[in-house]
């Protein structure tokens, strides 16, 4: 009679208790996994918003640009460097940009705007910009038109076909001014982009700012953030002062901090949840042991080593935990998969709160493996801890007293 068989039969001696204990693990796992999935999904969404709509995973910049974002801190990207970066394994696209500030004026109104010169084809590969055009058309190389956010267009009372004047300061202090027809209006899920951003062809921007061939950044995309460290390492070997490489997390420290503090809050919540579950399992184990003291003493009396008994008791706890973990995982995979494909759209005031924070108003879910295996690891750490109780009690069991009952 093998120990696992005895352990398995033992847990069904009190079906109700086993099922209740397993159910507590089940609900704990499902709750923690769904919560983790929602957290990680939201973080991914936030990072996606930042990375895929704007910054990219990595940027090559002039070394002073990030601290002092002026048109003077630009650089000329050589074809050889551009080609070498594009050939780095994991790099899926690159896009040069010349970014500066300008006043955008229509007939009646003026507003400050972020003006970004782009290579339309390269930019589309990086940020999928064309997808967000809601009126008009996307830019083509050498295009003389501009794209602008819908809220900015609405503020300035302009639309497709109207003319916008851009006025700013160019390279080394020259004045920059130009008139541009509105080719298209875009609407990003992130409203601050819609309020501020104007895109125009890179060459047009370089002419506007009197900065021929110069760019403020080369955006580098990789397949996903797992590829980033390797790509970053490869880039670091290619890029030397006066240029430098910045990753999305260096460019967005507030977001990194926000995610870290939110993740910590989630961890504390899950820790409380798991402590409650652990005490539930411990309660069951204490009852299991108390009920079977005499039986365990008999087993020792007839020649069963205490370590074998401890092993059987450990297996019993593992089996109960496994019942909860397996069903909990199955449930959480189902729930998370559903919400991964059908994210919860936030509406009304809540949506406004999201968009005000620059976050797409969606509760996204993640299917990353750690969302699931972290719960298994946690439950098994708890099982290990809880199983110390019967192990210690078995080791200390006084057979004559236990036999007397």
């Amino acid at each position, binding site marked *: *009679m093998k120990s696992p068989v*005895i352990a398995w039969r*033992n847990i069904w001696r009190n079906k109700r208790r086993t099922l209740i204990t397993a159910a507590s693990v089940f609900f704990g796992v499902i709750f923690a996994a769904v919560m983790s999935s929602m957290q990680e999904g939201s973080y991914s969404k936030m990072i996606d918003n930042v990375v895929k709509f704007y910054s990219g995973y990595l940027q090559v910049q002039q070394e002073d640009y990030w601290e002092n974002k002026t048109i003077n801190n630009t650089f000329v990207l050589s074809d050889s460097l551009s080609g070498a970066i594009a050939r780095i394994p994991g790099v899926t696209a690159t896009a040069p940009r010349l970014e500066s500030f300008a006043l955008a004026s229509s007939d009646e109104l003026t507003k400050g705007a972020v003006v970004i010169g782009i290579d339309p084809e390269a930019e589309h590969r990086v940020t999928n910009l064309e997808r967000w055009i809601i009126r008009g058309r996307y830019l083509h190389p050498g295009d003389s038109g501009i794209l602008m956010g819908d809220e900015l267009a609405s503020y300035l009372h302009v639309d497709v076909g109207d003319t916008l004047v851009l006025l700013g300061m160019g390279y080394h202090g020259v004045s920059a001014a130009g008139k541009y027809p509105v080719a298209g209006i875009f609407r990003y899920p992130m409203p601050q982009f819609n309020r501020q951003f104007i895109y125009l062809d890179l060459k047009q921007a370089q002419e506007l700012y009197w900065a021929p061939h110069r760019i403020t950044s080369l955006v580098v995309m990789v397949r996903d953030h797992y590829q980033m460290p390797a790509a970053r390492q490869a880039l670091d070997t290619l890029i030397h002062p006066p240029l430098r490489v910045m990753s999305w997390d260096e460019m967005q420290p507030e977001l990194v901090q926000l995610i870290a503090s939110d993740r910590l809050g989630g961890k504390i919540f899950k820790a409380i949840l798991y402590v409650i579950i652990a005490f539930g399992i411990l309660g069951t184990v204490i009852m299991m042991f108390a009920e079977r003291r005499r*039986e365990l003493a008999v*087993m020792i009396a*007839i020649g*069963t*080593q205490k370590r074998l008994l401890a092993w059987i008791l450990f297996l019993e706890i593992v089996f109960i935990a496994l019942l909860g973990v397996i069903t909990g995982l199955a449930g959480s995979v189902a729930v998370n998969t559903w919400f991964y494909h059908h994210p919860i759209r936030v509406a009304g005031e809540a949506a406004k709160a999201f968009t005000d924070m620059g976050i797409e108003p969606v509760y996204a879910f993640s299917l990353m493996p750690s969302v699931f295996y972290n719960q298994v690891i946690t439950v098994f750490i708890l099982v290990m801890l809880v199983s110390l109780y019967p192990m210690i009690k078995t080791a200390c069991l006084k057979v004559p007293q236990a036999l007397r009952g």
Partner: protein
Amino acid sequence: MKIIEIRDLVKIYDSEEIRVTAVDHIDLSFEEGEFTAVVGPSGSGKTTFLNLVGGLDRPTSGRVIIHGIDLWSLRPHEITDFRLHNIGFVFQAYNLLPVLTALENVEFIMHLQGWPKAERQRRAVELLEAVGLADRLHSRPSRLSGGQQQRVAVARALASRPRFILADEPTANLDSHSTENLLNIMERLNREEGITFIFSTHDARVVKKARRIITLEDGKVIADEKR
């Protein structure tokens, strides 16, 4: 041939409130093939004596020597192992494992000894047949009467081929028919297979069948009668 020698065995329970000498300087020996009853009133030290002989309880002083091995010189896990291979136990409350069938209960001890599966199954069936339970091999203890459970317990005690069997009031919970049946089985096993039995008992029917009667009172041997 002597299989058990007990020398100046003492067991004192010394709690804060009270000091009780449960076994008081006992010197005894047991020969192979004995059918011995240890009798005495409640609290006379019968169970404590059996626990000390069976390696379940540590004596305050004295020695228990089984086949030349001083039991209490062994380490705890060695004593457990010694019990497994040398001593069979039958308890008053049967104490079968409730999740195992009669056959599995008997097999379990042979499993601990590392017997091959086929061999231990064959022997378990033989033993259960010998105690008249051939038709209840696959019944769990909850499906067996008290007498049947105690017969399974005897079969279990025999399964490991022990040098002797210690039975602590084995008939205390049985009706007269079951008691008679059990005693006949144990007597037959003793007579035909030379298995040594040492009982503690209050039961006159058991005492009647015993060939040696040791009487304890206040932890002391006050009579040791052979028939």
